[in-house]
């Protein structure tokens, strides 16, 4: 090992699986945001379509759901789900699962509302003139309603996804505690062999987060510009 690497304490990262342990914390956070976004889009599409059915029961439940999501800060939801499930209900949820549940719970509500709004904004005459041309209900949806809905939905959905990705920084912050803890453990374990480990480990942690957040921030800015 070169003396430079040893003197700034990066050498610990090459010992055992230390590097992997740091990286996995980061990957968990990225995974959470990706899974939540995908789940939210799928659930939101189905839920939003159900909400246009004009069934009173669906209306009441979805209203309560939406309001709950809007009133509660995600941080609070996160605590409720994580500690509520583990402590009160005795379920053993990982922090990762709890985060996915909360972000999907939130994203699906927002997405459903966007889908509902886009669907009901299509004038009735669009349906009727399609029927009058001999189209079936399915053909009407396929060729007339869905393309118009998607057009209206796209910029709004991109905006939502951007917000979801930005909120990942919240998860990142929770994640960073994990990573710092792992870092601390690495430093402790290697106190004797690499006395300068602290600097190397923390610098690496910082760098990793920068590398992870930078593309996300770029992507969200790109999506926002595209939506505008």
């Amino acid at each position, binding site marked *: 090992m070169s003396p430079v690497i040893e003197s700034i304490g990066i050498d610990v990262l090459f010992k055992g699986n230390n590097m992997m342990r740091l990286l996995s914390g980061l990957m968990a956070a990225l995974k959470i945001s990706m899974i939540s976004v995908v789940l939210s889009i799928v659930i939101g599409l189905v839920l939003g379509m159900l909400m246009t059915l004009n069934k009173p029961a669906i209306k009441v439940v979805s209203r309560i759901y939406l309001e709950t999501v809007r009133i509660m800060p995600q941080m609070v939801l996160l605590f409720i789900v994580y500690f509520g499930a583990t402590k009160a209900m005795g379920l053993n949820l990982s922090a990762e699962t709890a985060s996915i549940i909360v972000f999907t719970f939130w994203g699906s509500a927002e997405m459903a509302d966007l889908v509902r709004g886009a669907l009901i904004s299509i004038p009735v*005459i*669009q349906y*009727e*003139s399609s*029927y*009058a*041309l*001999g*189209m*079936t209900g399915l*053909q009407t949806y396929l*060729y*007339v309603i869905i*393309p*118009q809905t998607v*057009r209206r939905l796209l910029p709004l959905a991109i905006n939502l996804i951007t917000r979801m990705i930005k909120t990942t920084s919240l998860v990142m912050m929770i994640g960073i505690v994990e990573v710092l803890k792992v870092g601390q453990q690495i430093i402790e374990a290697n106190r004797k062999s690499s006395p300068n480990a602290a600097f190397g480990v923390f610098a690496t942690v910082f760098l990793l987060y920068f590398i992870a957040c930078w593309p996300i921030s770029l992507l969200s800015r790109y999506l926002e510009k595209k939506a505008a």
Partner: protein
Amino acid sequence: MDPILTVEHLHKEFDGYTVLDDVNMTVNPGEVVVIVGPSGCGKSTFLRCLNGLEKIEDGKVLLDGKIINPTGVDIAKDRQKIGMVFQSYDLFPHKTILQNITLAPVKVQGRNKDEAVREAVSLLERVGLSNKKDQYPRQLSGGQKQRVAIVRALIMHPEILLFDEVTAALDPEMVREVLEVVLSLAKEGRTMLIVTHEMAFARAVADRIVFIDGGRIVEEGRPDEFFTDPRTERARRFLDSFEY
């Protein structure tokens, strides 16, 4: 000659409120029937009952002797034989003019795309809009949009055409260009059922006038008779409200 369209004892309600009451009508091939009547008397609802856009409480609508059932499995097929043009512009905003016209013949009737495009272009030429084929509806004026809507109905080769106040939403200077298209269709012998507030046009185009008031057919007859010497007091009062 068998009638194309037969309506027997049609009764239509909205939430228990009667909108059409015992309406009877036959339309023979090549006949142009114009329906007039005060606003809210049920003209639009009547046309919508004919192609199953509204369900009816009682009575029958028959096309070529076959019952039109709004909830039946054949309704989409039956509607292909009934062309309809609405009052409000109803073109598909996400499709070009050509796509608006060829969508149904290709996807619904399964016709060859090239053939449908050729027919669409020649119909557009006929209404003076072939240069607009690649534009979007928002780039067209109201009168142009209605002419496209007519072409979109024609390309399905319907047996009967329903026009519901197709010029009512237009600026006055555009009314004529649309009515001229409808007149030319009448001249070539199309079977049509037309709702309009343009009385001079009604008189010129109609083989028969049907006057509806309060959801009932009050008077029916030849246009020259109806416009010069209506038999009922209600028709007289209705005609007096127009200055033409």
